[in-house]
């Protein structure tokens, strides 16, 4: 979570709010912030750190491990309509790549701003080629998008 806190300004610029969730109490969250996270990111954690002691929230999102009594590393991108656009779930020993979350948010924001008239191909990042689905593009993606150059 320190990686998310460190990049929080980037998220703010994109208009994204963060909620972190674990089974720890809100009191333990405070102590973790005060004694470790704030030292790692040189500031206090700027977002809500939710407590899900019984795993009820994790169960709703399919990321609660009943045997271990902990949440898996589940990450969800939720749009302004409350719809889940993307999810990623990792087992505990490997961390997420934060820049990939940002890339996906930017891509979904682009699609939303164009009301779906443009879509973002593999590896898309801001400034890269988008595709405009329609009859003319069927069977012709190979003419406009090169997986070696455009990815």
């Amino acid at each position, binding site marked *: 979570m320190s990686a998310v806190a460190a990049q929080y300004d980037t998220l703010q610029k994109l208009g994204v709010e963060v909620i972190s969730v674990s*089974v720890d109490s809100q009191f*333990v969250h405070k102590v973790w912030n005060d004694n470790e996270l704030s030292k790692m990111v040189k500031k206090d954690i700027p977002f*809500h750190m939710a407590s899900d002691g019984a795993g009820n929230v994790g169960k709703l*999102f399919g990321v609660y491990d009943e045997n271990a009594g*902990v949440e898996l590393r589940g990450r969800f991108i939720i749009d302004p309509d409350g719809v889940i656009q993307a999810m990623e779930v990792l087992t505990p020993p490997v961390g997420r790549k934060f820049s990939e979350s940002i890339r996906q948010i930017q891509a979904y924001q682009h699609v939303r701003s164009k009301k779906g008239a443009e879509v973002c191909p593999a590896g898309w990042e801001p400034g890269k080629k988008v595709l405009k689905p329609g009859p003319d593009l069927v069977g012709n993606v190979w003419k406009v998008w090169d997986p070696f150059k455009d990815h």
Partner: protein
Amino acid sequence: MADENAGCARPTGATAPETPEKKTTEPQAKEIKMSVARVGTKAPDFDAPAYYRGGFTRVKLSDFAGKWVLLCFYPGDFTFV
């Protein structure tokens, strides 16, 4: 006693002998209806206690309607990854 590999989840090593399951024909009253989240569908709402900027409060997902939300679950405070 050998040291155990600490791993990266919150340690939850304790085990207890299996308790015999209650034999009942009645449905479990507290069974949670599982509507597991899926992409392209509405995120289930929740309301949870939270720590936020020095204070204790609650956080409700639906209060963030109209905004983009990055919701991150993780195994536990004071773990290593």
